[in-house]
């Protein structure tokens, strides 16, 4: 263990600035020409006043206090933090991408429309659906759109009484929130002892009020819902729609397809499976794919191809469309990166990615299974898919060390912590997703670190409770951040009086 993150004592950019320079009213000449009355003009603007080198140094130093995939291992479960090829960034920065306007004449954006049209086709093939829309900006945005399509479908079939969306207790938080935000009531079904959806509970939950089931497969425990055909059967015979949360698509690409499982709507996280970088929380892209029956409800505009004239165009004439979920056509800059990634990987490469991601997760699972302190709560006999959810409950019982302490200590070993405290159905859970782009040495280092932490928990637990030590800053008072919120520099100044 010899990791040490940069530790700059970097003040806020406002504190580097000499504030309060004069703010004279605009010149009479300007005022006369623009004809804006003085009462509509601002009297002050307290932005920082710093030089270009100051700006560059300040943010370079801050970047050095930030962990990314390029810094090291990032096994954050359900987030698929794989390596992001640099060529994708370069292509998204081309003038022919960055400098085109959404209202330009269609003749001047044929390349963009072609790329979108082809990307839709590729994604449709990968998930086994009929048609894809690239509009949603993120996975949750895709879910939200999916819920609106489900509502439109049931209205169309004059079954507006279908107001319930069923969500398993292991689902991502966004599933519950997206369904609620689109006006559905959420019905939660428990997992069974194998960590899969409880089939009996599901049968009991289904009724003529059921609009949809939202399911992640492989689920958040990294387990494949092997009763998927029974589940889709139950739903389709009850008139419900099956929604696939595609956050975990990386574990099955090229091996099986949500469409073939019987899902009607599938979302993709291009910022996970298709390697577009996450940018510290976005921008992402969350396209959704649908069956033929649901195509009519897709948001406008839809990209179409006129074969006769070899011309791509935007079609707004879609009377059954649910309308729009954002101002334009989606995160085009992100789509370009995903398109490049698919071409780089090809059909075989994508399948190999799913295989290697699964191999890496199973390797970690097998290596950790023998370590006292960690255990699998569900089904350790069958292979996992792209991720694995261990419980550190035994270690907590033995030493009092929590999974949070483990996660914080991992940072000292130069490894980003896995997801923890999620999914909530596993106590003291560490949800580990290594991805396919990590070499065996990195996986071994991670397993060794988790083993070493078990030893530390026994020999010097204080070291864990006060971790991390090698990061830019020590453990933070997150309770205070919410109890006494300081959300901006002006708020800080005001509260300090």
């Amino acid at each position: 263990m010899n990791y040490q993150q940069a530790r700059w004592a970097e003040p806020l950019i406002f504190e580097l600035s000499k504030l309060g320079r004069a703010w004279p009213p605009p010149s009479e000449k300007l005022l006369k020409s623009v004809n804006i009355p003085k009462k509509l003009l601002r009297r002050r603007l307290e932005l920082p006043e710093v030089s270009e080198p100051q700006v560059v140094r300040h943010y370079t130093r801050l970047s050095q206090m930030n962990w990314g995939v390029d810094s090291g291992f990032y096994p954050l479960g359900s987030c698929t933090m794989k390596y992001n090829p640099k060529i994708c960034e370069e292509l998204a920065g081309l003038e022919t991408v960055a400098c085109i306007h959404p209202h330009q004449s269609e003749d001047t954006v044929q390349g963009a429309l072609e790329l979108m049209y082809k990307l839709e086709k590729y994604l449709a093939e990968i998930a086994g659906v009929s048609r894809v829309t690239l509009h949603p900006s993120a996975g949750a945005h895709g879910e939200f759109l999916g819920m609106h399509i489900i509502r439109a479908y049931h209205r169309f079939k004059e079954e507006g009484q279908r107001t319930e969306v069923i969500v398993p207790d292991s689902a991502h938080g966004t599933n519950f929130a997206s369904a609620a935000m689109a006006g559905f009531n959420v019905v939660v079904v428990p997992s069974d002892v194998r960590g899969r959806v409880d089939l009996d509970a599901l049968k009991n939950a289904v009724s003529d009020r059921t609009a949809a089931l939202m399911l992640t497969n492989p689920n958040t425990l990294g387990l494949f819902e092997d009763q998927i055909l029974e589940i889709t059967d139950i739903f389709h015979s009850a008139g419900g729609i099956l929604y696939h949360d595609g956050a975990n698509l990386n574990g099955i690409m090229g091996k099986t397809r949500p469409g073939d499982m019987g899902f009607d709507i599938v979302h993709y996280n291009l910022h996970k499976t298709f390697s577009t970088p996450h940018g510290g929380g976005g921008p992402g892209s969350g396209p959704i794919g649908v069956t033929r029956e649901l195509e009519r409800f897709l948001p406008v505009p839809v990209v179409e191809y006129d074969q006769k004239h070899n011309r791509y165009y935007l079609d707004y004439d879609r009377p059954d469309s649910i309308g729009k979920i954002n101002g334009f056509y989606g995160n085009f800059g992100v789509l370009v990166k995903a398109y490049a990634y698919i071409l780089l990987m090809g059909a075989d490469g994508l399948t190999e990615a799913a295989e290697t991601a699964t191999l890496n997760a199973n390797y970690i699972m097998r290596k950790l299974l023998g370590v006292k302190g960690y255990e699998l709560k569900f089904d350790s006999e069958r292979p996992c898919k792209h991720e694995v959810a261990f419980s550190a409950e035994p270690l907590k019982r033995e030493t009092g060390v929590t999974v949070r302490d483990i996660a914080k200590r991992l940072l000292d070993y130069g490894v980003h912590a896995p997801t923890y405290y999620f999914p909530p159905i596993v106590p003291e859970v560490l949800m580990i997703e290594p991805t396919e782009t990590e070499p065996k040495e990195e996986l071994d280092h991670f397993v060794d670190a988790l083993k070493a932490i078990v030893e530390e928990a026994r020999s010097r637990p204080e070291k864990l409770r006060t971790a991390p030590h090698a990061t830019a800053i020590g453990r933070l008072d997150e309770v205070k951040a919410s109890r006494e919120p300081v959300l901006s520099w002006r708020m800080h100044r005001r509260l300090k009086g």
Partner: protein
Amino acid sequence: MLREIGVASIDDLFVDIPEKIRLKRPLKLPQAMSELEVKRHMKAMLAKNKPFTQMLSFLGGGAWSHYIPSHVRALTQRSEFVTSYTPYQPEVSQGMLQTLFEYQSMVAELVELDVVNASMYDWASALGEAALMCARITHRKRFLIPKLISPGRRATLQTYAVGPGLEVAEIGYDRKTGQLDLSQIRAQLKKDTAGVYVENPSYLGFLETQVEEIANAVHKAGALFVVGVNPISLGLLKAPGDYGADIVVGEGQPLGNPVSFGGPCLGIFACRSEMKLVRQMPGRLIGMTTTLDGGKRGYCMALATREQYIRREQATSNICTNNSLCAVAAAFYLASLGPQGLRKVAERCAANASYAMKKLNAIHGLETPIFDAPHFNEFSLNCDDTHMSIEKLNSKLLKRGIQGGIPLRGEFPELGETGLLCTTELHSRECIDHLAKTLKEIVGGKR
């Protein structure tokens, strides 16, 4: 590794997938290409686009081209920012957290409100979320918007309104000045309205001069006042927080982010610091705190109990992935320009528009702007008297290498053959003179 796992082949790791749904053929996708092949292939495909850097464009309408300083680009590409996830581990993510806190702080100064979230997807979805927030706070179900609003924003708002059953009603405008009809607002406010939304500058570029009167009327009725902005305009114009806005939304793309065919954008979302409001805010908030021992200042996510990953169906929004890196670029941009720089950009934008309006209005058959009101950097241009449709005018311009304005007749037939044009600091006087000269040639004659 297979031996360690105890299986004979990779396929053994997929035995849990039922036989019936295993994909037994390769995906029907192109075979892998080398980096060089991908680059050549995509550059050739994308070369069918004509970027606005290679022609003269007057397009705005919610996506605006501005100069992005080279160092802003360079900093935004730093891979420590680009390849990081949501800062769930604040101790190794101080860089992203402090930068987002600085973004929140700088936009707070710009709009003169204390609380700004770490970003929404875009202006349209931020508006949708603002309407939902008003309904949650007031427990009312009506939301008023101007009739003259971008069709994309209106359609998005309408989708967001469906869930809680919000009624979206329109406020009319004065045919001569474009200004919102105050008496209509007052009358509508009596009907249990949750919020009133005004854009300043408006979609058609003119300024709403009665914002203070509107704010008063809205507050008297117990509703919330939501204002939509182009943040560049705030280098010159009075901030919404100074005329009574409770919530501000807007499009942050012009702050250091490329247009990129309309995405990714940057949804700005701000509100007053009253906790009744803040607790109902959507999205991620970064807060200032200290280390547990109180010794050092640090930053982490705050008030997360509003968010979906903790509160699930009770969350204020489903948003998780947002547009953080766009907010980071905006922070670099605002810090670089400073108050004087942003003001220069805003002044140049407005001066260019006013120059363009003067030049174009002098052309026989053209009228600009169609509303008698002050404008910022966008303006309407009507060509009814040329007996040409705005599309026809645009296609003639395009043949001469100029991208004209956004046609408005489809959405607002009452405005006739009208387009929406935009100028920024990128347009020189010569560019505008060239537009005027070309338009004169197209429509012929002189007034």
